[in-house]
C-alpha cells in the first residue's frame, strides 16, 4: 500500500533547520504602546505645569503676557517665610486640616462602615444617604453650608433660637476663632460617605471564617475587631490615609466658597493662598513659591507613610 505524502509535508520533511524561537519581549515593552498616549497627556497636563510652577517660584512675574519674568532667586521663599503676613496662618491652617481630617472624618467613616456592614433593615438606604454628599460639587456644598450658617436666616442659628439656646448662636463664618472649624464641619459632611464606601469594600475582604473562628475561641467584638478586622483592613487604611492627606492639603473649593479665606485671612490655607497670590494679586512668583512649599509638604507626608505601609505589607 502506498501512502501519499502531501507536498507541503514533503517539503517540510526536507528542512533540516529547527524553527527559531521568537524573542520574548518584556511585559513593559509590550505595554508601552498603550502607555504612551496616557503618558503624554499626564506629562503635558500634570508634570509640565508642576515643573513650571517650581521654576516660576524663582522669578518675579505679574502673570500678564506682556510683562517679562525677572529672575529673583530665593527671594520669593524668603519673603514667604519672613515677610508674608498670611503665609504662616495658611501653613498652620493646612496642617490643622490634615490632622483633623485624619482624626474625625476618617474615624467616622470607619464607624459608619462597621455599622452598615451588618444586616439591618434599610441598610442600603442608609448607605446611599451617607454617600450622597460626596456626589455634590464642593462649591455646591459651600453654597449650602453658607446659608446654613447665615447669622440671621440660617438653620443653625434659627434652630438654636427655636430650642431656647439663643446664647449659643454665633457668627459661624464671621468669627476668625471658629470660622475654620465651621468650614471643616461642612468638609466632614461631604467626605465621610466616600471613605465609608472604601472601608465597606475593605470589610468585604475580611475572611469570614477567621471571624467565626475567633468567636468560637471566645473572643468578644473589640478583640475580633483589633485582631482580625483591623489587620485585614490595612490595605484599605493605606489608601484612605493617603487620600485623606492629599485631599486635605489641597482643600480649596470649600474655603473659597464659604469664606474666601476670611474673615481677615483667618481661614486661609496654602492652596488658596497660592491661588490668591497668583491670580488675585498677580504675583505669580510668590504664588508659585507657596505652591512649591505645599508640594514639598505633601511629598514629605505621603512618601514616608507609603514606604512604611508597603514595607509592612511585605512583612
Amino acid at each position, binding site marked *: 500500500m502506498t501512502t501519499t505524502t502531501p507536498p507541503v509535508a514533503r517539503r517540510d520533511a526536507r528542512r533540516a533547520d529547527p524553527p527559531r524561537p521568537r524573542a520574548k519581549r518584556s511585559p513593559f515593552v509590550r505595554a508601552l*504602546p*498603550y502607555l*504612551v*498616549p496616557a503618558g*503624554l*497627556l499626564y506629562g*503635558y*497636563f500634570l508634570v509640565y505645569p508642576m515643573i513650571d510652577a517650581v521654576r516660576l517660584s524663582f522669578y518675579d512675574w*505679574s*502673570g*500678564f*503676557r*506682556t*510683562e517679562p519674568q525677572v529672575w529673583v532667586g530665593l527671594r520669593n521663599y524668603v*519673603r514667604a517665610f519672613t*515677610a508674608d*503676613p*498670611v503665609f504662616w496662618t495658611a501653613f498652620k491652617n493646612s496642617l490643622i486640616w490634615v490632622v483633623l481630617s485624619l482624626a474625625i472624618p476618617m474615624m467616622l467613616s470607619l464607624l459608619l462602615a462597621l455599622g452598615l456592614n451588618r444586616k439591618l433593615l434599610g441598610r442600603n438606604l442608609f448607605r446611599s444617604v451617607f454617600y450622597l454628599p460626596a456626589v455634590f460639587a464642593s462649591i455646591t456644598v459651600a453654597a449650602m453650608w453658607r446659608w446654613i*450658617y*447665615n*447669622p*440671621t436666616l440660617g438653620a443653625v442659628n434659627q434652630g438654636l433660637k427655636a430650642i431656647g439656646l439663643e446664647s449659643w448662636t454665633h*457668627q*459661624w*463664618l*464671621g*468669627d*476668625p476663632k471658629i*470660622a475654620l472649624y465651621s468650614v471643616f464641619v461642612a468638609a466632614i459632611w461631604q467626605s465621610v460617605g466616600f471613605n465609608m464606601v472604601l472601608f465597606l469594600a475593605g470589610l468585604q475582604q475580611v475572611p469570614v471564617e477567621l471571624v467565626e473562628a475567633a468567636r468560637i475561641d471566645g473572643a468578644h467584638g473589640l478583640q475580633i475587631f483589633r485582631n482580625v478586622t483591623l489587620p485585614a483592613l490595612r490595605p484599605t487604611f493605606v489608601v484612605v490615609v493617603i487620600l485623606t492627606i492629599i485631599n486635605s492639603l489641597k482643600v480649596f473649593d470649600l474655603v473659597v466658597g464659604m*469664606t*474666601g479665606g*476670611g*474673615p*481677615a*485671612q*483667618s481661614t486661609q490655607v496654602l492652596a488658596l493662598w497660592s491661588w*490668591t*497670590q497668583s*491670580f*488675585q*494679586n*498677580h*504675583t505669580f512668583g510668590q504664588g508659585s513659591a507657596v505652591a512649591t512649599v505645599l508640594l514639598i509638604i505633601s511629598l514629605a507626608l505621603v512618601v514616608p507613610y507609603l514606604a512604611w505601609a508597603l514595607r509592612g505589607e511585605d512583612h
Partner: protein
Amino acid sequence: MRYTRSAAVAISATAALALVTGCGSGGTSDAGSSGSGSSGEKVDLTLWLPTQEDSQKAGLETLVSDFEAANPDITVKYEERSVDDHKTALRQVAGTDAGPDIYWYWEGPGLGGELVNAGMSLDLTKYYDQYGWSDRFSDAALAGITQYGQHDGIPWTLQGEAIYYNKTLFAKAGITGTPTSYDELVADADKLVAAGITPIQFGGTVNWHVMRLLDSLIETECGSTVADALNTTQQGWDSEPCVTDAFTALKTWGEKYINQGFMGISNDDSSQLFYTGQAAMALEGTWFDANLTDNGVNPDDIGIFAFPTGTGRLYGFGEAYYVNATSKHPDEAAKFLDFITSTAEQQKVVGAWAAMSPNVDVAPATGNPLHELWPPIFKAATGLYINNDQNLSLDQTTEYWRIQNSVLTGDIAPADAGAEFQKFIDANS
C-alpha cells in the same frame, strides 16, 4: 494580527499627539470674533461685563438689538460675571487671544490702570477724532479716560457713592433731617440703635463693601490732601495719627452700628436687610437706584445724602468701556461704542446704570425718583475721592482688606493698623 496591533499603536499615538498639539496651541480662534473682519462679512463682537440688574439688562438688550438692526453684519454677544470673577477673568486673558473685543471696567489706577499697564487697552485717540467723542463727554468724565496718557476707553458712568437711608426708619428714631457733619452722622446712628434699628448694613465677605466705610473715614479724619497722599502711598501710613483715628472709628462702627454677623455674609445678603426695612442706611452708589426698584422698594421711602466727610468731595469713580488691544475688530468695536453713547440711544436707557448719562446732551433720568436726588449732590461736590481698591495695587488691596477686617475682628489694634500696612508697602516696594 501584527498589522492590526501596529495600526492600533499608530492610531493611538497619532490621536494623542493631535490632542496634545491642539491643547498646547493656545487656541487658534479668539473668543471674541469670527469672520475675517473685512467689510460685508459677518463679525461677532464679544463684550464682558459684571452681572447686570434687571433694568440694566433690559437697557443693554435695547442697545444691542438696536445696534444689530442698524448693522446687520455685526452681532454683539455679551458675557456677565460676578464683580470679582469679572476682574479675575480679564486679568487672566490680558495679552492673549482669549479676551473679549470690549470690556467694561473701573477707571481707577488699581483696576483699569492695571490693565492699561498690561497693554490690554487699545488707545482710542483716532476714534475720538473720528467720532468727535471729546465733545460728547464732559471734562470730568474724560479725566478718567486720559489719566494714563492716551485715550483709554469711553466713559460709561460717573458713579457717585453716598448714603441711602430709609425715611420711615429715620422718622421712627426721631431723626428729622440728614446729617451735615460726621458727628451728626454718629449721633443719628446712636438714635437708631436706641430705637432698636440696625443703623447701617454691610456684607463683610466681599471686602470692598466695608472698604467704602473705611475710605470715607480716612477722608473724614485725614482731610483730602493727606488722604490722597496716603491712598497713592506717597505718604507713610505709619506717619499720620489720623490713620489711627480712622481705624478706631471703623472699629466703633463694627461694634455698634453695622448689622450683626456682617463679617460672614456677602453684600447681596446684607442688602436684603435694607430692601426689607431691617437696616436704616446703605453706603451705595448711583447704580443702587435701579437695585432698589428692581427689589420692590418704594423709591419715595428712600433718601440720599453724601457721607459727611467735611472735605466737600464726593465718594465715587468712573466706569468705562474699553476696547481690547488684541481685538481683531477694533473698528467695529468703536462703532458699537459710538452707537451706544449716542444721544438717541442714551435717551432710551438713561438711568439704568447711573442717574446721569455720560453724554452731555442727554438730560438726567426721570423715571426713578431717586435719580433726581443725585444732580444736587454732584453739583455740591468740590471733587471726587475714589475707592481705594482702584487706588492701590492688587497685593496692597489684599493687605488693606486684611488689616481692615483684622481691626473689625479685634486681631489688630487700630493704633497698629497704619504701621502694619506701611510695613507691607515697604516690604513689597
